[in-house]
C-alpha cells in the first residue's frame, strides 16, 4: 500500500475540475463539457489505479487511510479510508459520472436556460462526484454526515434548474424529504456524540472508536431510529419513497442516474456501514420491522410499476422494489445476504444507468415525452436502441448471466438461510418484476410503429456513436460481471464478514440438521 493520499486526491480532482468549469466564460459551453469529460475520466483512471492496489486479503478494516484533526473541539477528524464496500461504490460512482456526462452531452442545450447553465450543469456533476466519493470514503461519522447533507445541494440544483415542467416542486420535495431525514440523523448524531463523551471521556466521531463502545440497548434503539430514518428516506424504503418518482420524473436522465444509481446507495451503504456495526443490538431488535418494510417495498414498487404510464416513474418504482431487495439482504445478517446486497447495489447502479440513459435517448427523439403510450414498435426503426433497452430491461429483471442476478440471488439465498419463508416470499417478486419489465419493453419497443412517432417531425433515428459509446461500457460490465463476479466478491466479502463479526449474529445453522419445511430451525 502506498502512502499517496489516493482518496483525497480522487475527491479533490473533480472539485478543482468543477471550479475550472464554473470559471469558464459562458460563451464556451463545448469547452466546459470537454473539460468535465476529461476530469471525470482522470478520476476514473485514478480510481482504477487505486482499486488495483487494494488488498483484498488485508486484515485492516480500512485501506488508503488518511486522518487529520478537523474540529478537535467536537472530536471531529477528516479521516477517510475504504473497505471493499466503499471501494466498489466509489468505483461505481467514478464509472457512472463520465458515462452520464457523455450521455448528457446534448441534454442541456435542449432547454432555453441562460447559456451559463451548460457549464453550470457539468460543474455541478463534478461537485457531486467529489461529494459522492467523499461520502463513501469517510470513516468519521461527522464527516460522513457533512457529505451526506451537502450532497443535497448540487442535486437540488440539478433537479430544480435542469428538469421538466414540475422541476421546482420535485426539487423542493426531494430536498425537504432528505433534510427531514438528515435532521433526525443530526439529532441522533449529536446523541451518539454525547454518548461517546460519557463512555470514552472525550467525544469522538471516529467510526472504529464508536464501534468499540457498547451503548445500552435503549439508547441504541433511539439513535438507531434517527440514522435509520435518514437512510430509509435516502434509499428510499417504503413508505418514505414518494419523493423518488417525482424527482426521477422531473430530472434529466443524467441526474436521475447519479441520483438513483449512486446517491441513493448512500442509504443502504449507511445501513451496512454505520447502523449495523454501531447499533448491533438495535439492529437486531428492529430487523423484523425493517425486513417487513423491505418486503412490502419489493412488491409495492413492482406492483405500481406494473401500472405506471410514465417510463421514468416506472423506473423509480422499480428501483424502490430493488432497494427492497438490497435492504432485505442487509438485515438478514448473513454474509451471503449482505454480500448480495452490495453486489446488488453495484448491479442496480448499472441497470438504472442503462435504463435511464436509453430511455433518455429515446425521449430526446420524441419531445422528451416519457409516456409509454407515446411509443411502440421502436425496434423497427431503431434496432440498436431497442437492443440496449432490452439489455437494460433484462438486467433490471435480474436475468441470470447478468450481475444483477448474482446480487439478487445471493440476497434471496441469504434471506432464505435465515428466514425460509421470507426468502421464499421475496422470490415471488421476480415474477412481477419480469411482468412489468417486459410489459414496458413490449409496449414501447415492439408491435406496430406508433403513428405519433412519424407524426409532427418526430422521427426516431437509431443511436449515434456517442450514445452507443456511453451505453456500451455499462452493458459490457453488466454481462461480464454477471459471468465473472470475482472482482466484486473478492473485495466485498471480507468487509461484510467484518461487519457481521461486529454485529455478532451467529450464522444460521444450515446443513443437514435443518428441517427444511419448518423455519424454526433457521430463526435466531
Amino acid at each position, binding site marked *: 500500500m502506498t502512502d499517496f493520499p489516493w482518496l483525497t486526491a480522487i475527491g479533490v480532482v473533480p472539485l478543482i475540475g468543477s471550479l475550472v468549469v464554473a470559471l469558464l466564460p459562458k460563451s464556451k459551453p463545448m469547452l466546459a463539457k470537454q473539460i468535465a469529460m476529461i476530469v471525470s475520466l482522470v478520476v476514473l483512471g485514478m480510481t482504477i489505479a487505486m482499486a488495483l492496489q487494494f488488498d483484498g486479503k488485508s486484515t485492516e478494516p480500512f485501506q488508503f487511510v488518511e486522518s487529520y484533526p478537523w474540529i478537535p473541539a467536537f472530536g471531529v477528524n477528516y479521516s477517510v479510508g475504504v473497505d471493499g464496500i466503499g471501494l466498489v461504490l466509489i468505483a461505481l460512482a467514478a464509472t457512472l459520472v463520465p458515462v452520464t456526462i457523455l450521455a448528457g452531452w446534448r441534454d442541456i442545450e435542449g432547454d432555453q436556460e441562460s447559456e451559463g447553465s451548460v457549464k453550470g450543469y457539468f460543474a455541478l456533476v463534478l461537485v457531486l462526484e467529489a461529494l459522492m466519493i467523499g461520502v463513501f470514503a469517510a470513516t468519521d461519522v461527522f464527516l460522513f454526515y457533512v457529505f451526506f447533507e451537502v450532497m443535497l445541494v448540487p442535486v437540488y440544483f440539478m433537479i430544480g434548474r435542469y428538469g421538466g415542467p414540475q422541476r421546482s416542486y420535485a426539487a423542493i420535495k426531494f430536498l425537504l424529504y432528505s433534510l427531514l431525514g438528515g435532521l433526525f440523523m443530526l439529532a441522533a448524531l449529536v446523541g451518539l456524540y454525547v454518548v461517546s463523551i460519557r463512555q470514552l471521556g472525550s467525544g469522538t466521531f471516529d467510526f472504529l472508536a464508536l464501534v468499540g463502545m457498547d451503548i445500552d440497548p435503549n439508547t441504541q434503539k433511539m439513535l438507531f431510529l434517527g440514522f435509520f430514518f435518514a437512510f430509509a428516506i435516502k434509499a428510499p424504503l417504503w413508505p418514505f*419513497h414518494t419523493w423518488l418518482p417525482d424527482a426521477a420524473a422531473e430530472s434529466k436522465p443524467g441526474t436521475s442516474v447519479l441520483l438513483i444509481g449512486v446517491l441513493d446507495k448512500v442509504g443502504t451503504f449507511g445501513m451496512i456501514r454505520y447502523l449495523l456495526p454501531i447499533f448491533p443490538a438495535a439492529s437486531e431488535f428492529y430487523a423484523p420491522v425493517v425486513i417487513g418494510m423491505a418486503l412490502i417495498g419489493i412488491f409495492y414498487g413492482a406492483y405500481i410499476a406494473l401500472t405506471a404510464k410514465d417510463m421514468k416513474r416506472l423506473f423509480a418504482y422499480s428501483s424502490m422494489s430493488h432497494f427492497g431487495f438490497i435492504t432485505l439482504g442487509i438485515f438478514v445478517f448473513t454474509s451471503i445476504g449482505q454480500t448480495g446486497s452490495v453486489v446488488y447495489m453495484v448491479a442496480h447502479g448499472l441497470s438504472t444507468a442503462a435504463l435511464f440513459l436509453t430511455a433518455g435517448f429515446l425521449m430526446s427523439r420524441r419531445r422528451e415525452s416519457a409516456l409509454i403510450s407515446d411509443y411502440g414498435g421502436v425496434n423497427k426503426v431503431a434496432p440498436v436502441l431497442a437492443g440496449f433497452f432490452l439489455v437494460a430491461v433484462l438486467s433490471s429483471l435480474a*436475468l441470470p448471466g447478468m450481475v444483477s442476478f448474482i446480487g439478487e440471488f445471493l440476497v434471496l439465498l441469504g434471506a432464505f438461510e435465515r428466514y425460509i419463508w421470507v426468502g421464499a416470499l421475496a422470490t415471488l417478486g421476480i415474477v412481477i418484476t419480469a411482468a412489468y419489465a417486459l410489459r414496458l419493453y413490449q409496449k414501447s419497443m415492439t408491435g406496430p410503429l406508433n403513428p405519433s412517432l412519424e407524426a409532427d417531425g418526430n422521427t426516431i433515428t437509431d443511436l449515434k456513436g456517442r450514445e452507443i459509446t456511453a451505453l456500451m461500457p455499462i452493458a459490457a460490465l453488466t454481462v461480464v460481471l454477471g459471468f465473472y463476479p470475482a472482482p466484486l*466478491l473478492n473485495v466485498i466479502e471480507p468487509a461484510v464478514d467484518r461487519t457481521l463479526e461486529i454485529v455478532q449474529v451467529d450464522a444460521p445453522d444450515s446443513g443437514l440438521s435443518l428441517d427444511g419445511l419448518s423455519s424454526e430451525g433457521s430463526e435466531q
Partner: protein
Amino acid sequence: MTEILPAEGVFSLLWVLIALPAAGALILLLGGRRTNTWGPYLGILTVVGSAVIAVLMLLAMMAEPAEQRTVIQNVYDWVFVGSFQVSFALQLDQLSIVFVLLITLVGALIFIYSLGYMAHDPDRRKFFAYLNLFVAAMLLLVLANNYLLLYVGWEGVGLASYLLIGFWQRKPTAAAAAKKAFVINRVGDVGLSVAIMLIFVTFGSVTFQDVFGQVGEANEGTLTAIGLLLLLAAAGKSAQFPLQAWLLDAMEGPTPVSALIHAATMVTAGVYLIARSNAIYNAATWAATAVVVVGLITIFMGAIIGSAKDDIKKSLAGSTMSQIGYMVFAAGLGPIGYVFAIFHLLTHGVFKAGLFLGAGSVMHGMNDGVNMRRYGALKGVMVITFITFMAGYLAIIGIPPFSGFWSKDEIIHAAFERNSIIGAAAILAAGITGFYMTRMVAMTFFGKKRWEDDVHPHESPKVMTIPLIILAIGSTFMGMALLFWGNIEYWLEPVVGYESVPTPLPTWVYIVVTLVVVIIGAIIGWVTYARKDVPIEAPRGNLLTRAARQDLYGDAINDVLVVEPTYKSAHALTTFDNKAVDGFVTWTASFVGDLSKRLRRSQTGFARSYALSMVGGAIILLVALILVRLS
C-alpha cells in the same frame, strides 16, 4: 459408483462446445448489418463445429468403461461467498452427451433448413444470432454441473425463446406471446430458485454430485419440497399442467423455432431436470407421484387440444405437450422410467422436429397459411414433404418399426410395471394420439383441395427438404438403433439408474393392446377427416371440442385467477400510493400552510394587541414559573 474424472483429451474442449455458438451469437449481434451476407453461414458453422466435437466426445466416451464416463471441467470459480461456493464447471456424462448430440445435430439440421425458410427475411442475421444464443444456452443447461449454473442456461434458453417467439414483433400477438411465455416461465423459475436455495440450505452445496451423494442424510420432508419445487420449474419450461398455457401461443414464432425450441430441445429441459435429479425423486415418493399425475394430466390435455385445433402448428404444439407429458410421466415412475423418458425424449426430438419442419414446408408452399381446413390433397404436390411427414406420423403414433413405437411402448410397459390403471391411461392417450395425428395427415395431404384461390402449393427447395429427409430417416430407424445397438437403458443406467419389475401380463399383450387402440384411434380419424369432406368453416363441435379450441380455457383460468387480480390490486395500490402515502405528505404540507395562515392573523398590526400579547405572555410565563416553584 461412478467416479468423476477431470476433463482431458477431447473432453478438455468441453467449454468450446458452448463457446462456439456463443461466440457466433456475439459476433452476429455486435457485427450488425455488416454480417448480413455471411452471418447465417457463420451461425451454422459454429453449431456444426459443436456437433463435430460432440460426436468426437461420444466416441471417446464409448471407449471408456461405463463407470468412467463422467468428466468434469472446472472452468473458473464463479460465485463464492462464505460457504456458498459455486464454480463455473461443466459436467459431461452419459445423460448430458445424448442431449448435447440431440441439440447440436438436430440444431444443425434446423439451421440449414432455416437458410431456406428464412431466405427472404430481412433480419435473418438476427434470427441466426438468436438461434446460436439458444444453442449455447441449452448446452450450458445440460452441461452445467450444478443447479445454479443450470439456472443460467435455463434462463438463457428462456431468453432465446422469448426473442424468437417475438421474432416477428410487428405482429402484436407475437410480442404478447413472447412476453407470456417468459412470465409464465418465470413462475417456474421461482420454483427453481427456491429449490436451489433449499438444496443449498440442506446440503450446503449445489453441485450435483455433492447433493446426490448426501440425499440419504436429508429428511424426506425437505426432499419432497425440493422435488415439488423442481417439478414446478419443469412444468414451466416443459409446458406441463398447470403452466402449459404459453406453448400454444409460442407458435407465433417462425416454424424452425417451433421445431428446435418448442418441440425438440428446450421444452424437454424439464424432463432433463427431473431425470438429472433422479436421486432426489427416488427418495421422495410423494414428489415422484406428483410428477406422474402432472404428466398424465398433460398427456390428455395436450392430446385433446391437438385433436381440436385446425391450426397445424398449434395442433402439433398440443401433441408436443402430450408427448412431453409422456416423458414427465415416465420420469415420475422412477428408475423403471427415467431411461425411457430420455429415450422417448430423443426419438420425439427427432420425429417432432421432422413433423414441424414438414409443417413448415407445407406452410411455405401455402403462403404461410396454417389453417388445415384450407389444405388437403397436398400429397401429390409436395411429395418429399409428404413422405417425410408420414415417417414422422408413423413414428409419433408408434407403429413398429418406427422410432416412436419403441420408446412409447417402453413407457407404457414401465407404467404397467408400476400400476395397471395409469398404464391403461397411457394406452388410451396413445389412442388419442393416433386420432389427432391421423386427422392432421388426412386434412393436410388427403381429401379434396380446399386451397385459397391465390395459393399455388409447391415443393420446398433442397435446403429445406434435405433436413426433412435426414430427420425422416432418423424417425424411422433411430428407435431401433438406440435400443438394440446402443442399448440406451444400460448406457444411461450409471446416471439415472435402471431397474425392471415383472408385470402381471406378458409384455407382448401390452404391445398388441396398445397397437390396437392406436389403430382404432387412427381409423376414427381417417373416417371422419379423409372419407368425409372437411368443411372449410369449422363446425361448432361438441362441448369438449370447443373447450379444446380454447386451449381447455387455460388462458381464461389464468386471467381470472392471476392476471386480472394482479392488475386490479396493482391499480388499487397505485391509487393508494397517490392518495394515501403521498397524500399524507402533501396533507402535512398543506396543514402547516394553513396553520401559517391562521397564525399570521395574530399579527394584527395594532400596537396595543402586541402589548396585550406581551402582558398575556408574561402572565403565562409567571404562572408557569410559580407552578414550577410550588411543584
